[in-house]
């Protein structure tokens, strides 16, 4: 299959989707509170582009900061856990216990702890990311064949050396998978947190627009939020493809 085909077919189906959507709204004469047409929504995005833009920026900024903090925490803990069995036995049950709680359940707690400002969103994003990265990093670091480790060890490499030169690069694809999953979860988590309490952010925009029954703005905000999260995800996937060529 040609590259053009790969890019073209999804584009065609998205176009068809919008076309059917637009026609459905026009034929059935649906009111905007049930389903605004794509043209109405684009108009809404255009009219409120400044407001939507600044709010989505806040959301994405908090997502990104939380994502970086969470990834670093997850990665650091994973490295410690691989170096020391004792740490592994201590941290693993906590990680499994925390990750079996639906992330959304932590939202009220973070809002009580960190208030309505940016901190609670960053904390939620970090929480959503760190455990996914941690679990993926540990399984990636451990998946390295024992024979290769033994070879390096027999040449006199220290345990830290083996970790940095062999296990870490070998586990990067798995870590990146964790980061990708974590990033989309972080975006959703930040938006949900903003809905429950925030001064700004696209989640708050959606919440307020719902409250004043302005459904064109709800849809516009949802589309903008989706586009923003897709762009973040695309950047990460691009970095992944560029720098981790050995997968």
């Amino acid at each position: 299959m040609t590259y053009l085909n790969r890019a073209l077919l999804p584009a065609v189906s998205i176009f068809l989707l919008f076309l059917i959507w637009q026609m459905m709204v026009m034929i059935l004469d649906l009111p905007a509170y049930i389903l605004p047409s794509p043209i109405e929504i684009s108009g809404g995005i255009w009219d409120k582009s400044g407001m939507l833009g600044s709010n989505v920026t806040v959301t994405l900024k908090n997502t990104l900061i939380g994502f970086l903090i969470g990834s670093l925490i997850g990665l650091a803990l994973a490295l410690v856990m691989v170096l020391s069995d004792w740490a592994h036995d201590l941290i693993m049950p906590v990680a499994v216990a925390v990750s079996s709680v639906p992330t959304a359940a932590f939202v009220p707690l973070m809002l009580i702890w960190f208030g309505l400002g940016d901190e609670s969103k960053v904390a939620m994003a970090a929480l959503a990311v760190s455990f996914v990265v941690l679990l993926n990093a540990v399984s990636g670091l451990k998946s390295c064949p024992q024979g290769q480790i033994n070879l390096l060890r027999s040449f006199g490499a220290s345990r830290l050396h083996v970790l940095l030169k062999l296990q870490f690069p070998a586990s990067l694809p798995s870590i990146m998978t964790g980061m990708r999953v974590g990033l989309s979860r972080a975006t959703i988590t930040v938006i949900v947190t903003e809905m429950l309490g925030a001064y700004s952010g696209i989640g708050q925009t959606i919440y307020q627009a719902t409250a004043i029954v302005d459904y064109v703005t709800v849809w516009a905000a949802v589309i903008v939020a989706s586009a923003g999260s897709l762009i973040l995800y695309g950047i990460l996937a691009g970095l992944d493809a560029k720098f981790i060529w050995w997968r």
Partner: protein
Amino acid sequence: MVLILWLVTVPLFGISAQTLPALPDVLLSGFNIWGDLLDSTIYTLTETFFGFVAGAVIGISSGLLFWWSKKAEQMLLPIFVALQTVPIIAFGAIVVIWFGNGMVSKVVIALYLTFFPVAVNTARGLERTDPELLKLLRSFGASKFRIFRTVSLPTALSSIMTGLKIGIQLSLVGALVGEWFGDTRGLGTLLLQSLYFEDTERVWLLILLLGLIGQILFVLLSRIEKRYIWWK
């Protein structure tokens, strides 16, 4: 062990109840409202269950469709993968407008969340069939359906189960968050109320309970997997 740690650290470091209430207090607060708790758990679990089952059925069928027709896959799978990164929860408000404030809207949200991982994992699992094996079977003149039943489906099942495990957890999240858009019952509603009253004990109680539920659902699926997919 985590619980013991919790039990010991709170009195030891004199952490204020606002930050982390002592474990006995949390459990006691649960004991006082156990009737409400049970009622809400059943309500939320019902939403989760129906959303999960519907999402799994639709997800597996579309996974099969992708496997059957390459055209459908090329057109739709990239969109599905992209949609997985989209903040679906943001649609919650719209879903409530469409399906009302009752159980149906939560089931729909849970369905939507379950659907994507199941569909994607089904399609990928079916594609992973050993090509040599396929060639062999085809050279013996096996029909497409027969190949599907004897080779592709058994290989794909473990991947489908992975999708289902992700799906059930997302389904629980969907039910919870769905209740935030104005329901009066369920664990999500309780969670929201305890936020408004800044009742940290109640929040922790619900976190514990939800962790337990999440774990039980996960173990349940793992059991089914071990029991029926022994060739993995």
